[in-house]
């Protein structure tokens, strides 16, 4: 499993052939084609804070892999939910002397040291998904993602539009700053009451029973807001089980969530377009290394959301979701 680098011998051979054919060795359409062919086959490391087995990250990863494949680059994906271990993975990528690093910047303070080391080693680092407030200060060159608080606010506004009165914000990972911000944004924008409910996202039975017992205890809740698509599916079942009238809406999507929206079980989803985050992060790095571009100019993040998926646009989205890209 060695890294696939272009063999210099091949390039020399190609050059020799061109020369031997007696053609013009400069300019023309040929030169342009050569530039594409000679484009460095880059190795790009993507290091996320993914906990094992979350569908959201599959989308991020497929986006990254598609972008890498299109550009003839190699993607090396790794993840660890603990900040210190994620930092160690970044150092591993530096040791490997990759051409670019894309990192989810969920815990900026813990990752700063590793990011600085990458800069010293001359490896460009872009951020994605989390850390929209910190990336620039931390010296990342680009950022692709959604402002969590903004998404939360958009969710809250939408709740007002729907005439909701009391919402339950289901936090599936205690201590995750991004999730907390979603709830905070929701609380700020929403005119009604918001209760938070902490559940153990690693255990679906726990998610289900926590939501069930909460709904049984409090029948005023008319909207359940989950912060991840898999939890929305569980929430739908839990709501049905209690016979509550509450509707379910969620942040983030996956294939099942989109089907549920189409079926009318799920009201809407705030989509941050994870596929796009992964894709753009790799694409942005590739452009930066191969062509010296900087998306957002190094000062503005590239926003991938929030966008809403609801009954109005779900059919279109569903098509792509079936292909594993939405």
């Amino acid at each position, binding site marked *: 499993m060695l890294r696939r680098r272009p063999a210099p011998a091949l390039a020399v051979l190609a050059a020799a052939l061109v020369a031997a054919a007696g053609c013009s060795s400069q300019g023309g359409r040929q030169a342009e084609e050569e530039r594409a062919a000679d484009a460095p086959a880059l190795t790009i490391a993507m290091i996320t804070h993914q906990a094992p087995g979350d569908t959201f990250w599959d989308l991020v990863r497929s986006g990254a892999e598609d972008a890498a494949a299109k550009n003839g680059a190699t993607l090396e994906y790794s993840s660890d939910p603990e900040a210190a271990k994620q930092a160690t993975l970044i150092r591993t990528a530096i040791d490997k002397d990759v051409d670019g690093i894309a990192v989810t910047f969920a815990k900026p303070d813990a990752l700063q040291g590793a990011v600085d080391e990458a800069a010293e080693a001359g490896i460009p680092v872009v951020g994605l998904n989390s850390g929209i407030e910190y990336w620039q200060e931390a010296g990342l060159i680009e950022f692709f993602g959604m402002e969590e608080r903004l998404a939360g606010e958009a969710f809250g506004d939408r709740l007002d539009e729907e005439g909701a009165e009391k919402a339950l914000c289901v936090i599936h990972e205690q201590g995750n700053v991004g999730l*907390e911000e979603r709830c905070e944004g929701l609380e700020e924008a929403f005119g009604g009451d918001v209760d938070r409910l902490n559940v153990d996202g690693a255990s679906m039975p726990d998610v289900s029973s926590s939501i069930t017992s909460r709904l049984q205890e409090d029948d005023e809740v008319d909207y359940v807001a989950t912060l991840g698509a898999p939890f929305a599916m569980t929430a739908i079942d839990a709501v049905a089980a209690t016979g509550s009238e509450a509707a379910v809406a969620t942040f983030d999507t996956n294939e099942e969530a989109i089907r549920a929206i189409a079926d009318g079980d799920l009201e809407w989803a705030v989509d941050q377009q994870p596929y796009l985050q992964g894709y753009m992060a790799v694409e942005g790095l590739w452009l930066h290394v191969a062509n010296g571009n900087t998306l957002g100019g190094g000062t503005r993040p590239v926003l991938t959301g929030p966008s809403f998926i609801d009954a109005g646009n779900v059919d279109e989205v569903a098509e792509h979701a079936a292909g594993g890209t939405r």
Partner: protein
Amino acid sequence: MGPAPALPAPGASEKELRAGRVPPLRRLAARPELGSLLGAVVLFAVFFAAAEPFRQAGSLATVLYAASTIGIMAVGVALLMIGGEFDLSAGVAVVTASLATGMTAYQFNLNVWAAAGISLALALLIGFLNGLILVRTGLPSFLVTLSVFLMLQGLNIAVTKLVTGSVSSRSIADMDGFDSVRAVFASSVPVLGTEVRITVLWWLLFTALATWVLLRTRAGNWIYAVGGSADGARAVGVPVAKVKIGLFMTVGFFAWFSGMHLIAASGGVQQSGEGVGNELLYIMAAVVGGCLLTGGYGTVVGAAIGAFIYGMTKQGIVYAGWDNNWVMFFVGAMLLLAVVVNSWFRSRAGGRR
């Protein structure tokens, strides 16, 4: 019935009293850490062959760093396991110590070193309580420390939220003493031209120190005895309860040390939800290194090798460019292999260990 045993003057040496001579090779095979050492060598060779970046000195430094973050705690956990107990609260206790340092420094405007002192006292207290509950109730350590683990997990998040209003501690990176704390707990030192993280040096130092304590001091003798046969040790006057409480407090000390590294390395901010699951990695390192889960047997050097195996597997898979999804599978397979090899060696070595 055979002939009457003669009753010679005591002092006469008898054939029947001679245990068989032990061949040196078999003695070596009986070393608790041998299996893990072989495993480490094989793994190293595999990654060395399969992953080109693995061959650089800088990569070895990264592997050692990953190993040291587990290995420092594994020193305490191995001592405790040799003493016949284990501590499921060790993983979150690290984060508790880190949070305690961060929050006391920030909230009371303390020099970070003073906050570190308070945090140390807290970590030792947690260890003390673990031990005290254990010896007072006589419950198995699994139950006692599992309860403490869950309580700490809740406390970490609840208290942090109460104090700071968010789920992580506030940054103390600009406070007095932080720079020197970082120099002690999370700096890098050049060793033979490579930047090596300081935790690696601490890890080696602690391993050496604990090995000395275990093999060359009375405390070490007592640790083995308490783990091997608590009743036997008590009968010859070993203060079993004190030894056990002391061991839990030792784990507390290392939890504090690891917590100090965490907060120093993460720029003075600690997420309150972390640390869960690491306790099993510490235990894994000790077991891979040849410590018996039932106590009384093992070495700290073995635990260090176990931690090294973990670091090597975890990072080596990334260096080799293999799919990250398989990391935990390989770590688990390593554990199983190590345990099987260890028990095989032990049965081959003949002892009833």
